[in-house]
């Protein structure tokens, strides 16, 4: 078994450029003079993976003989060799270059956790003249920006020159929730040599951008989604910032524009700009890339550039399993509201419960002292003992018929206590009040975990409206611990906890105060496999993800990552990622993923299938968005008139 790593086409008639030019000087192609087509050969370079021996695939110890015949691997052989299942597995797509469905063994995929790592926030493969909007309001060609940064020093890896130094603290604009723009610091500057065809996309507003054909842009017509530039056609509309002097912080709207014109307003910050032409342009030279903090896009040449993700497919597959196949429960911490569509899809709605973040409640009687210490890492030993005493009292009263208690009860008892120093007492009360202000503590849990975490069912916790990271971390910390303990007592079935933007919940290098949910997630990562409690970590910033958690994820699904900073981090956490594999990751096209680790016997490249359920709720219809915007505008005007 060998893996084709490279394909080369060769033709003896085209070995000398000057001869070709000379023969074709009179206008006839070479094929009109010589039978050149006949001498074209496709040559494959292959890396030997193993040999089919008596006891299955064995490591090869010497190379095959020159001249030995080769053939395309049969599906049965591929299944066996790659460790795939012919049926009954988690079907994530098709093996690249084979029409072979990739069905992963559920046990191997999830038992030892799964990390889905997508491209970090970098606009990749942009031509040097592409103008980048710095948050100072300055417009600067990306080539100039990156070259300037690299001139101060650079590292080189896999053909990519990069630096993580940003002494001037430059930042750019990125697209956040609700189509609003915000500032984000540049984390890395990178460039690499490119020779081939770029696409020059010209827009109705007069803007343009040159980029590689697989670079995604936010398409607005139909359902709003990120699509590869190569798929865009004249008439499509893509997102562009709608500022006049946004860069100065004024966020002033652009002059109103005619909807019938080639661009129209989508949000206060965004315009929809129509593509008028797409031209291929031959290019040879550097292409440029920026990695942007905590984001996955940035504004270049007045367009928004971005990447896509993968995990919904796995959730759908788990939901589609029959009881005979074994069905874990799924709990999704949905930061962007990307999974709520599951509940609206007729194919899945009966198995999916969506809980809005503001409906989530933590039942205070279920919160242990250890968890309080997680939520309040500043708590001292004395304060913890005092809180323990209060909790024990309240639990005792509760058992004697007083009923469940809430955080106000806890605060009142702490305030009324006289066993501790007043200063320490006041501090504890203050912290508890701070917790109470999050608005998520109550007398009982919502949801009732044992009732909603069921085999073959999914609970989607929609955190898209929640802005406080601390609040989200508290929720995730509680939910994760609650699930894990319930699982240990066998009160809930084996489960998969999916964490979107996992780096927010188990960040690397942050203090305990800023990483409330990290320790419980690290615990599940370490011990979960014994109890069939699995994690699916989804992150577009692997570099910010705790290495402890990442290294426990024995299967990695990696989508395109070009940022050398992130690539290096992934390489450190997985021995299976060699330099060759890392180079392949950086050239993955949109919609393809590398699966590596426990779930497969050998790293495989997969064309990921389309998700069957509806996409994120933010995939709004452009016309509807425009109508809603105008409706809101008129309401505000009416209100103003009424007020006057």
């Amino acid at each position, binding site marked *: 078994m060998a893996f084709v790593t490279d394909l080369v086409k060769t033709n003896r008639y085209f070995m000398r450029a000057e001869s070709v030019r*000379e023969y074709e000087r009179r206008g006839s192609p070479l094929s009109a003079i010589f039978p050149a087509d006949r001498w074209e050969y496709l040559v494959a370079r292959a890396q030997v993976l193993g040999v089919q021996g008596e006891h299955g695939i064995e490591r090869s110890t010497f190379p095959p003989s020159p001249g030995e015949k080769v053939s395309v691997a049969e599906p049965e052989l591929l299944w066996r060799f790659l460790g795939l299942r012919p049926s009954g597995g988690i079907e994530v797509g098709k093996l690249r270059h084979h029409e072979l469905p990739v069905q992963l063994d559920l046990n191997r995929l999830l038992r030892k956790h799964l990390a889905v790592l997508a491209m970090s926030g970098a606009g990749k493969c942009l031509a040097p003249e592409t103008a980048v909007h710095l948050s100072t309001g300055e417009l600067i060609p990306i080539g100039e920006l990156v070259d300037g940064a690299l001139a101060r020093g650079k590292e080189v890896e896999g053909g990519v020159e990069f630096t993580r130094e940003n002494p001037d603290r430059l930042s750019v604009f990125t697209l956040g929730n609700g189509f609003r723009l915000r500032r984000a610091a540049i984390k890395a500057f990178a460039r690499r040599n490119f020779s081939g065809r770029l696409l020059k996309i010209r827009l109705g507003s007069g803007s343009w951008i040159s980029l590689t054909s697989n670079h995604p842009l936010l398409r607005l017509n139909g359902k709003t989604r990120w699509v590869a530039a190569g798929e865009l056609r004249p008439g499509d509309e893509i997102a562009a910032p709608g500022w006049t002097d946004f860069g100065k912080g004024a966020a002033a709207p652009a002059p109103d524009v005619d909807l019938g014109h080639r661009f129209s307003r989508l949000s206060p910050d965004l315009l929809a700009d129509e593509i008028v032409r797409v031209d291929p342009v031959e290019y040879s030279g550097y292409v440029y890339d920026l990695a942007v903090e905590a984001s996955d896009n940035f504004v270049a040449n007045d367009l928004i550039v971005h990447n896509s993700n993968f995990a919904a497919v796995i959730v759908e597959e788990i939901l589609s399993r029959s009881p005979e196949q074994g069905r874990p429960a799924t709990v999704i911490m949905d930061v962007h509201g990307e999974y709520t569509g599951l509940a609206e899809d007729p194919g899945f709605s009966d198995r999916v419960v969506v809980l809005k973040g503001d409906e989530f409640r933590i039942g205070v009687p279920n919160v242990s002292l250890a968890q309080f210490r997680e939520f309040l890492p500043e708590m001292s030993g004395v304060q913890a003992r005092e809180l323990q005493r209060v909790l024990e009292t309240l639990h005792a009263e509760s058992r004697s018929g007083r009923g469940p208690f809430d955080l106000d009860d806890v605060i009142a008892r702490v305030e009324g206590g006289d066993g501790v120093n007043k200063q320490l007492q006041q501090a504890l009360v203050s912290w508890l009040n701070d917790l109470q202000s999050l608005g998520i503590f109550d007398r009982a849990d919502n949801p009732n975990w044992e009732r909603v975490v069921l085999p073959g069912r999914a609970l989607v916790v929609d955190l898209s409206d929640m802005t406080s990271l601390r609040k989200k971390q508290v929720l995730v910390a509680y939910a994760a611990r609650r699930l894990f303990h319930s699982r240990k007592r066998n009160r809930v079935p084996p489960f998969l906890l999916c964490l979107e933007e996992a780096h927010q919940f188990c960040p690397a290098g942050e203090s305990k105060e800023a990483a409330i949910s990290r320790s419980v997630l690290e615990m599940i990562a370490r011990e979960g496999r014994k109890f069939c409690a699995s994690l699916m970590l989804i992150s577009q910033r692997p570099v910010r993800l705790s290495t402890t958690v990442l290294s426990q994820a024995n299967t990695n699904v990696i989508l395109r990552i070009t940022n050398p900073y992130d690539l290096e981090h992934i390489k450190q956490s997985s021995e299976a990622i060699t330099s060759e594999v890392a180079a392949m990751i950086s050239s993955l096209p949109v919609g393809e993923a590398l699966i590596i680790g426990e779930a497969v016997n050998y790293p495989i490249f997969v064309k990921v299938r389309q998700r069957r359920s509806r996409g994120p709720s933010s995939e709004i219809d452009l016309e509807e968005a425009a109508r809603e915007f105008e409706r809101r505008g008129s309401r505000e005007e009416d209100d103003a008139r009424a007020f006057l």
Partner: protein
Amino acid sequence: MNSSAWPAGFPGDLERALDSMVERIIDQERRRKRIGEVLSGLGKVSLAGVEDLVEKSLVREVKRDPLSDLKVCGVDGGLLDQQLHGLDLILIRAVAVIFHYRRALLNGAEYLPSEFPPLRMVDVAEPLDAWEFQLLAGMERQLAELEVATEAAERDGIGAILLDGSIVPQYVERFPRSPVLVERYQKLIQAYTKLYQTCARSGVLLCGAVKDSRGARFVEILKRELRDKFGLSLEKEDFSVLDRSRDTVLLNHLLQVGQRTSAFTYAEKPASYVLSDLGPWAPKICAFYIKTVPFDRPLRVEFLDQGEDTAATADRVASLIFALSSHHDGFGLPSVIVEADACVRLAEEDLCLVRDSISDRLEPSLFLELRREKKPF
């Protein structure tokens, strides 16, 4: 011939020798150019009666063949040989490439015996000396080429066959001491005769494009005729440079693109030593030089005169060669021969493969390599 000698370690002398050689070349080129200019002036002078020239004018314009609905065959052979201890090896292969033209464009290609012609191995155990071995190897290659050329000539619809090189066996000696060579030579003559007969019978033009001709017969004719019959006013030194000129070197100063020389008979006397074994075909072998592209030297073309009108045959051959050879400004060889050459080209590795396969089957003590191949350092 000029020779320069210098003691080792005296680069100054080498420098002077190089300067002297370059000066001589420049001087000779200048004189050849002058001769070329004078000869150009003879364009309209009738050369009727000039022995050995087929046509009346020295230089003739060539009309490019339109290459419409035509099949042209190019034949070439590849050869590798190696002398071993007690055994000599020859590897050969030959191919006939047939280009199908329609409306001046290549419309298809056929290959005889195939586009990957099989290798033929000849092992020679007879104690030939090195020169005889080289002759034998050349004959084997020619035999292979003639075989595929004859097979192509027997096919329907072939308009012309172009050999890579001469269309006659160019052996001056008759190898009195080597029965092996005599036997192969006889076979070669038979093969040539068979090819001539086949082409004549089926009306196929037979010609040969000689890549780097060393012929000087045309210059000989000019030397003889120019002074005697036209009394051209050339300095004695200019004439003397002709003694040091091959045909293509001189004609490079005379012919323009699309021009050819008058055709001339291959040898002064048909029964001369080279052609003596070709019998009635000897007087039918003619040649001319043609300039097909601006930055390449004139090409020597030999052809078999099959009809009454030799000049018409020469025109037809020239027209075809011009059309096939004028694609590349710096390389004026027919495209069909370029393709044939590429198909039969052999790499040194092919020979190593055969030699090693033989070695593998022998006792380790039976070394095949010559001592010169086994130098320890």
